[in-house]
């Protein structure tokens, strides 16, 4: 046996008691992840484990008329091949009410997989092979032969756009918003631009592809799943399989990135549980990257008209945005592309409309900053174009249109420091050194340009149940079923709890990622940190009251909490927010509505100023980003180290969206051609410049500890800043992403 040399582990940073919040504490899961100790969903061991591989439809719309599994069944090691002819019947997807109960509505699609002969997109799972090994399952899956009756399918976004209809919207986002008469104002504006921008579909490419292990024990189901919504998905699975929610446990201690792609329940999860039921053994279904692109949604493509009218001195009189995005015929998300246009600039007359076209494609879903990633490209590119029409500095134009209240709702801003972000950013980046004329800056054969854009992402707060236990050995345990997808969620909540309880950071343990814990929020819309913090602070406050009372009784006032507990011979004290009893759930919904309504009094958002410098080769059109600064207005920063990583990572993702990422759909048959990292180009290290991120660190007084979620805002404005810099460098406007080589020449 080899002995491993003992590498010195970084001593835990000595965090002073009461000083954890605001410190660049290392991620708690970091060591487990870099040493491989962290167990991801597909890595749990069960003695009787079987391995499943899905078979995907190869037509976009139609009916399965025959399905021959004989050759697949004959592969040695195959345990079962399930199709719509022999799979267990389960309940159909129920349409849920998002306010009452997120569970049933969390489905990625409305299809009852393997319970129907209907095919709704190319890639829809229509069978699953379960085998003793993953090799046998992978070998057998392609041997299933399927005969279809094909129907005409709508798969070409460009060709289907004329069928788009106005979108309805929902509680949080209206399909159409109007103020004044924007078209008339545009027609009479002194200066105007009327432009069309397009963005391609984008795929999820988390480092950990979607995976599930499903284990039935009687009518109890345990699912290890790559999910960012354990609570909703355990309720969803309970409904689909007709068992009480208490008998379904969804676990996701470690999730290797999610970005919205692991919010909805996708086919793999349902089919794994179905297959485990059918074969009476635990089933592991780990999707290949190709399978992810065929069976888990991504971002919609979009076409946008945006028109801006202004006075000669740069005051917006008209703002119109008309967007077309798509959904699948069996589900999909209204991507709120007009969100930035509705809340950023004080235009007198506004008209923003969302239009949807239904297509026979895999339903789209959330992908980091859904709505704002596209919307900020459209709006912030158009603002730059208008600035050049006006011969005005693009930042100056933005500042001239800083509204006093929310331009759409008229509500007060809980906090708005965009002006300060641009001022501090411009200074730090050296914006003033730029010669504003396009094609005026050069470094040898490289044309140099600088661009800026506003970053914007709204704030959402949900509810979390939390239980905190303080023990007489001085430790505390925080329990909440929130999610750790690599953002340092547990680290940050430990920092918050430590300071709230007045104990050392290292003494706080956090349990998360399990539906058996007090339910946490889904991790999305950048809500999780503030949502969980709200309840952690409340529970810690209650616990502190209990300790104080006990201290008075035992005469230990002023001593550390553990001393009080020991003096009172109390092993531990607990405090909770929320409960899962019937009454408790009703109360949680009440709390959600109360928070929601309270938050609705304000217009709240994370904002920022993005700056970049690009180099475009004058001869070949190659685009290199040479410098980046993001200056953010994102409230009070709990952990500068992990906050910087979130912002930096988002900017990298924005660079991918700007430069190279695109889902390629074959317009003849609706098949994804970019089904893998060999054909879907993510940015690589060599594409990423040094990224400077900074923040104003001004707390939002309407939020717990002044926290504003920052997981997505960093991605917004990135593509526009790059496109604007490319214009500055080359004099060419690029209105269709990605900015490929041939477009810059």
């Amino acid at each position, binding site marked *: 046996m080899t002995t491993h040399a003992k590498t010195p582990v970084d001593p835990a940073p000595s965090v002073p008691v009461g000083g954890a919040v605001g410190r660049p504490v290392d991620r708690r899961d970091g060591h487990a992840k870099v040493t491989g100790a962290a167990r991801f969903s597909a890595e749990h061991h069960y003695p009787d484990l079987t391995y499943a591989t899905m078979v995907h439809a190869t037509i976009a719309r139609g009916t399965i008329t025959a399905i021959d599994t004989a050759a697949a069944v004959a592969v040695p090691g195959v345990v079962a091949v399930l199709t719509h002819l022999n799979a267990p019947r389960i309940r159909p997807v129920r349409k849920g009410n998002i306010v009452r109960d997120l569970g049933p509505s969390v489905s990625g699609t409305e299809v009852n997989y393997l319970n129907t002969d209907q095919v709704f997109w190319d890639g829809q799972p229509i069978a699953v092979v379960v085998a003793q090994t993953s090799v046998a399952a*992978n070998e057998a899956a392609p041997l299933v032969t399927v005969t279809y009756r094909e129907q005409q399918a709508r798969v070409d976004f460009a060709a289907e756009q004329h069928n788009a209809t106005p979108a309805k919207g929902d509680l949080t986002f209206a399909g159409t918003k109007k103020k004044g008469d924007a078209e008339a104002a545009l027609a009479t504006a002194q200066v105007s631009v009327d432009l069309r921008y397009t963005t391609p579909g984008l795929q999820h490419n988390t480092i950990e592809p979607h995976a599930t292990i499903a284990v039935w024990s009687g009518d109890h189901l345990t699912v290890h799943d790559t999910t960012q919504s354990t609570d909703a998905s355990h309720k969803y699975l309970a409904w689909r399989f007709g068992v009480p929610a208490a008998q379904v446990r969804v676990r996701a201690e470690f999730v290797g990135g999610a970005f919205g792609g692991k919010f909805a329940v996708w086919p793999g999860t349902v089919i794994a549980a179905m297959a485990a039921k059918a074969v009476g053994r635990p089933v592991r279904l780990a999707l290949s990257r190709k399978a992810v692109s065929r069976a888990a949604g991504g971002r919609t493509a979009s076409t946008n008209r945006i028109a801006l009218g202004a006075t000669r001195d740069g005051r917006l009189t008209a703002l119109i945005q008309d967007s077309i995005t798509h959904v699948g015929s069996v589900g999909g998300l209204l991507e709120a592309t007009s969100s930035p246009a509705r809340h950023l600039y004080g235009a007198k007359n506004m008209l923003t409309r969302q239009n949807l076209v239904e297509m026979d494609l895999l339903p789209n879903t959330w992908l980091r900053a859904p709505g704002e990633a596209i919307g900020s490209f459209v709006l912030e590119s158009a603002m730059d174009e208008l600035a050049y029409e006006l011969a005005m500095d693009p930042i100056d134009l933005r500042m001239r249109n800083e509204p006093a209240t929310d331009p759409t709702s008229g509500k007060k801003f809980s906090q708005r420091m965009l002006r300060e972000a641009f001022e501090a950013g411009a200074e730090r980046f050296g914006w003033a050194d730029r010669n504003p004329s396009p094609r005026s800056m050069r470094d040898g054969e490289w044309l140099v340009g600088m661009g800026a854009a506003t970053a914007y992402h709204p704030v959402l707060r949900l509810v979390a149940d939390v239980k905190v236990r303080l023990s007489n050995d001085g430790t505390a345990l925080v329990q909440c079923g929130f999610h750790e997808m690599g953002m340092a969620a547990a680290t940050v909540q430990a920092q918050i709890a430590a300071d709230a309880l007045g104990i050392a950071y290292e003494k706080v343990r956090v349990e998360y990622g399990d539906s058996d814990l007090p339910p946490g929020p889904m991790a999305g819309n950048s809500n999780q940190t503030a949502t969980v913090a709200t309840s952690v602070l409340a529970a810690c406050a209650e616990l502190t009251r209990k300790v104080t009372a006990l201290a008075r009784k035992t005469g230990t006032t002023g001593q550390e909490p553990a001393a009080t507990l020991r003096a009172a011979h109390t092993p531990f004290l607990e405090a909770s927010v929320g409960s899962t009893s019937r009454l408790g759930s009703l109360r949680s919904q009440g709390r959600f509505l109360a928070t929601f309504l309270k938050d609705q009094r304000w217009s709240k958002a994370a904002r920022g100023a993005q700056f970049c410098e690009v180099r475009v080769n004058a001869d*070949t059109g190659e685009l290199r980003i040479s410098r980046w600064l993001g200056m953010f207005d994102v409230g009070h920063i709990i952990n500068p180290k992990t906050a910087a990583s979130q912002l930096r990572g988002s900017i990298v993702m924005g660079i991918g969206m700007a*430069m190279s990422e695109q889902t390629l759909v074959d317009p003849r048959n609706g098949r994804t051609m970019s089904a893998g990292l060999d054909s879907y*180009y993510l*940015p*690589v290290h060599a594409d990423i410049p040094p990224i400077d991120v900074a923040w104003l660190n001004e707390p939002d007084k309407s939020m717990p500890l002044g926290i504003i979620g920052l997981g997505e805002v960093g991605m917004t404005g990135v593509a526009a800043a790059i496109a604007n810099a490319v214009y500055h460098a080359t004099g060419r406007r690029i209105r269709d992403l990605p900015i*490929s080589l041939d477009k810059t020449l």
Partner: protein
Amino acid sequence: MDFLRPSTWDEALAAKAAHPDAVPIAGGTDVMVELNFDRRRPPALLDLTRVAPLTEWGTDGDLLRVGAGVSYRRIIEELGSRLPGLAMASRTVGSPQIRNRGTVGGNLGSASPAGDAHPPLLAAGALVELASVRGVRRVPVDGFFRGPKRSVLEPDELIAGFLVRPGGAQQFAKVGTRNAMVIAVCSFALSLSLETRSVGTGIGSAAPTPLRATEAEEFLSRELDWEARGPVPPSVAQRFGELVAAAASPIDDVRGTAAYRSHALSVLARRTLAWAWKGFREVGP
């Protein structure tokens, strides 16, 4: 699937003769991708990694002979000064992991129009050495490629290595949709020999096969001021670029348009010419 593991070159050739449908595997950076994606299920794999001579290089008369199994990383580290063009191309291949495993023999075996080793081999006028139990033949590399992913390699043959005359000035340039880990949108290699006063070219990713721009080569070798090594007149560089672009027959695809490829090729041709000639003028032959 059978897995054949010869440990000598003779065993390898015998195995290939006995199993002509066995797929040779060197670094596996193309083969394993094909197997993983289930693009093919060969009856057998012929593992060449234990055949020592394939990983050796040395001289053969006044030629340099490089075994088919020498990795990109070793080309960069060990042959950088002798085969600068190929070393430059090797540096642009994939990632460090791919350069550790991938080989020039594998690149030739795949015969992709986008293979990055091909343009410098074409420009250097390399010979590809093919062997079978029937014997050995040396094929000029510009006669090696027959179509996209097709070559003159016979079913019972293996690629033993390649031979080039070292020396001269060599350059390589590649344009891609991102900065690394990328298939070329187009690439170009140039080689100039003062000794023979000859010009060699190689074009990648802009035709069904990698190819030479023979007219451009002839034009440039006539026009260059070999004697005094005077500056290249802009009109000559321009014409050279045009002739290189004219030799290609690019298509539109997701990585770039045909028009872009033609444009970029002429830019790369002029650029590599400027670099190579500058090298001569500064350091001499």
